[in-house]
């Protein structure tokens, strides 16, 4: 659990490694013959390691590139540059054909339990898809395997012939889990698997996921924007902001000593069950919106909204590194990390006013 230096190549327990992964999406230009192209900088130079058997939480605001990063890791999107190393082999340039056998080992559980199941197909056929695609089992054997999977995720196997519309959101998400489990994958990417569900149903699905993890030895990348969910399931957490990882730490260290002002602000926004306690707490209100990922701010990309911003933050981009007395696996990309007990809601930015103006909207301003 000690080494997090991304340069340290493929340690035995590292299942997935992302090296300097960059993903840009070209924008369709409005002008017909314009040669200039603009890009959405969805993921910018991300280094990440996922160890076998752990759950890595990935948090950040909507549009910060979490899902894009996950899809790059699963080879659903080709990366613009950088490397994706899965289970010891560099899959970055793998063709669709070479990728096929690996598809069994990397699976995704999607956010929307309504959109991720084809409404025109029966549940049995949806869950049986992996077997059909990889031509593993057919007929009665496939049906038996599918029903076993349904049982595994807590669905009634007799509902084999039903359509997705006849299930509730939580049950649908179980169907999605069953489909992902078909070949007992090495890595499951959970892309906000519970954010579309009721709180009580969220708990069931989270428990199902963790029970399956211990039973089958699964590795998860768990994407979420609900911090209490992430805290509950993750071993380590990475915080993303505008396509970059700004802080990465074991979950307890992250909650005890948030170093990045952004992490600090996020954690201060988590609702507390105790109203007395909640009243006493200082909430950090960030100024403005997330800037456009098309025109990314210079230096530290968080500087336009950061209460602790200094001129250095506008000019130079901070690198991920250990700060203060943290352990080696707690890294942060900030020039002026937050000290324990510091209240950044009292700080005022020391930068020019025009550097603080935030372009609002996600895709606006092109």
């Amino acid at each position, binding site marked *: 659990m000690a080494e997090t230096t991304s340069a340290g190549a493929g340690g035995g327990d590292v299942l997935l490694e992302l090296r300097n992964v960059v993903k840009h999406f070209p924008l369709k230009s409005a002008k017909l013959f314009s040669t200039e192209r603009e890009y959405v900088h969805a993921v910018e130079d991300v280094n990440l390691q996922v160890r076998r058997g752990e759950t890595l939480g990935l948090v950040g605001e909507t549009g910060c590139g979490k899902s894009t990063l996950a899809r790059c890791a699963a080879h659903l999107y080709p990366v613009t540059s950088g490397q994706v190393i899965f289970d010891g082999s560099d899959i970055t340039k793998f063709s669709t054909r070479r990728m096929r056998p690996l598809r069994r080992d990397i699976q995704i559980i999607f956010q929307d339990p309504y959109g*991720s199941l084809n409404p025109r197909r*029966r549940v049995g056929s949806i869950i049986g898809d992996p077997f059909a695609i990889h031509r593993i089992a057919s007929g009665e054997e496939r049906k038996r395997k599918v029903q076993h999977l349904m049982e595994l995720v807590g669905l009634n196997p007799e509902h084999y012939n039903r359509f997705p519309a*006849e299930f*509730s959101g939580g049950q649908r998400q179980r169907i999605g889990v069953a489909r992902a489990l078909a070949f007992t994958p090495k890595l499951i990417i959970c892309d906000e698997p519970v954010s579309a569900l009721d709180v009580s149903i969220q708990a069931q699905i989270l428990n199902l996921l963790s029970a399956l993890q211990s039973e089958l030895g699964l590795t998860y990348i768990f994407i979420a924007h609900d911090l209490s969910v992430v805290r509950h399931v993750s071993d380590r957490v990475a915080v993303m902001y505008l396509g970059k990882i700004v802080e990465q730490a074991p979950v307890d260290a992250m909650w005890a000593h948030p170093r990045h002002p952004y992490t600090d602000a996020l*954690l201060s926004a988590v609702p507390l*069950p105790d109203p007395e306690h909640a009243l006493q707490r200082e909430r950090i209100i960030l100024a403005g919106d997330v800037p456009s990922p098309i025109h990314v701010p210079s230096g530290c990309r968080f500087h336009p909204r950061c209460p602790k911003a200094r001129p250095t933050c506008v000019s130079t981009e901070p690198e991920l590194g250990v700060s203060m007395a943290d352990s080696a696996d707690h890294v942060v990309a900030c020039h002026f990390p937050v000290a324990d007990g510091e209240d950044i809601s009292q700080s005022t930015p020391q930068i020019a006013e025009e550097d603080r103006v935030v372009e609002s909207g996600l895709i606006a301003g092109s």
Partner: protein
Amino acid sequence: MSFNISGATAQVEAVSVAEPSVGEQQKTIQGKSPWVLASRRLRRDRASMISLGIIIFIVVCAIAAPVFAAITGHGNMTQYNTIGRTPAGQPVGPSSTFWLGTDSQGRDLLVRIMYGARVSLFVGVAATAVTVIGGTILGLAAGFFGGWIDSVIARFFDWLLAIPFLLLAIALFSVAVQSPIFGFIGPGLPIVIIVLGFFGWASVGRIVRGQVLSIKEKEYIEAARALGAGPWRIMFIDVLPNLLAPLIVYTTLLIPLTIVGAASLSFLGVGVQPPTADWGQMINDASGMFLYGSWWYLLFPSLALLITTLVFNIFGDGVRDAFDPRGDLYV
């Protein structure tokens, strides 16, 4: 900063994982497919069911036209110059011999209308099939593959829409009268079906392309890709079934349009050629005779055309409502 576990996670421990979330109604294990649900909704729609009854009646009439001709003893080509015409050579009105009167050639109008239904229905179905199949293939390719394939097909559609189809039909007809186009497309039915079918590609293709573009963004397509499904499998297993509902709706609404289109071509004299019975051609012929008081000759073929297109349209509307996702799912 404090970090109590939120209410959600506290609840988590209480719920057991093993507890299966079983649906309440155990009795119906077989799921109701969207098709079953749609047809159930359709069967509840009285207007559609009446229309369907009339459509079936028209189809039966068309099929049974020779039988009826045999019963009455009036062949569809037979001219009754003595009993079927007035001494002045005009058509005779409805009577016990000729139920709907006769036409300008002294033929039984009812028998002619029944034979005309064969042509109209055949052209309606055949040309619509050409339209829907061609448009679906092109639209699917354009939407699914995108890129330059999409651009080429889109330009092709623009080109199709830019051609004045009526003028082309007339021009092709005069060419085909000289010698069959490509050696086999002669004047009459083949040209009507090809012209009507071909020029519908753009509209169907654009609908299909739009649908494919929206389906392509659905998460279940991404899920299929994540499972390792190839493009053909995704196209036929995941995309096409979702297109069928709008296609069926469009098809039922396209048939009456095509029937009217075919009748219009016949009316202009570039469609089905005499002596084959055809409604458009009858209406054309009758409009010249109307001056002399033979109202039945104009009225009955027009009514046949009107009722046929009307019931197909009402039925098409009913089909669309039945497939409407806003409708109640559990009828």
